[in-house]
């Protein structure tokens, strides 16, 4: 009997036992490496395509700002829902989050944007605001007159025969400037986001 008491005392007066008893805690839980957290910058150069902002489903979650080092995407906490679409949509891999970039590499998938411009010919009155405002047109033909008429056919938009004509839709960057400058809501830009599984020969 006294011997068992000694054993009990030996067991219960150990420091480890006392520590475990008074501060019982599970091991601190670590965030697993595959957790898709808020996107972080990888340090690659942003080319200001703004595909991240176009793909983002949450209002006000991401914007691209100009810094002395160049363009830089900025994530707003409290708006970002950690879906990872900006990481996938970025053509340069500027952002990274969890294993999104790795799985894109192994599965050979990517999100690709394409743009389609629809001009409602009954509403269009040929004012040329869209063609003049278009930043792509401005790079090709800086001398374009106010009516949207130009001599070259390399342009994205051009007014001919009193209506707006879409000449090279593949040059569109999806900025929707034409849409904002149209007084009649005649021009509409559709942003098409497709998940592409690149074919094997592209590897």
């Amino acid at each position: 009997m006294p011997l068992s008491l000694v054993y009990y005392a030996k067991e219960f007066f150990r420091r480890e036992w006392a520590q475990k008893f008074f501060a019982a805690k599970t091991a601190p839980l670590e965030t697993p490496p595959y957790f898709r957290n808020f996107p972080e910058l990888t340090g690659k150069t942003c080319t200001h395509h703004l595909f991240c902002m176009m793909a983002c489903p949450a209002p006000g979650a991401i914007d691209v700002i100009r810094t002395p080092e160049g363009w830089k995407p900025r994530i707003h906490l409290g708006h970002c829902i950690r879906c990872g679409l900006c990481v996938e949509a970025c053509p340069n891999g500027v952002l990274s989050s969890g294993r999104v970039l790795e799985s894109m590499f192994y599965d050979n998938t990517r999100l690709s944007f394409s743009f389609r411009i629809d001009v409602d010919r009954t509403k269009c009155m040929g004012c040329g605001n869209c063609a003049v405002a278009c930043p792509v047109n401005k790079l090709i033909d800086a001398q374009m007159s106010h009516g949207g008429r130009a001599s070259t056919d390399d342009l994205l938009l051009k007014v001919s025969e009193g209506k707006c004509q879409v000449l090279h839709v593949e040059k569109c960057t999806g900025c929707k400037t034409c849409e904002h400058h149209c007084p009649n809501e005649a021009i509409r830009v559709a942003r098409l986001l497709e998940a592409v599984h690149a074919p094997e020969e592209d590897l």
Partner: protein
Amino acid sequence: MTLLQSLKNLVRSRSIHVAYVDVGSCNGCDIEVLACLAPRYDIEQYGIFVHNNPREADVLLVIGAYTPGWEEKLEGLWEKIPDPKAAIAIGNCPISGCLFARPHTLVDPPVAKHIPIAAQVPGCPPRPTEILSAILSVAPTVFRDYEVRK
């Protein structure tokens, strides 16, 4: 502050009572709060007791984008909580409204317009560990200088 008071505040800060209120969320953050109660995250080992009685609560977890049904009710609920108290916004909805804050919707975020918010946990939804660490970081400040302030 006397030694007794500081001792009392120390003990109080180790037993936090939490109430949570859903002011119109999609239920995602509610599930993450419930995950905190489950054995994996086990919120009670930190001395935090979650129940839904604002009369006993110290910390209020606000979840959701503040729908019109909660006008005047949330303020009343905040008044019911005895001092000292703190409110934590869980998830994006009470911070910014997130996906629901679009033109012509009825939600009225942020919740900080209606009751004072002490901490915000961004995420849609936030991880249970993030909720836990937010409550734990608010807990010492809730009771600090409590009796002196009073």
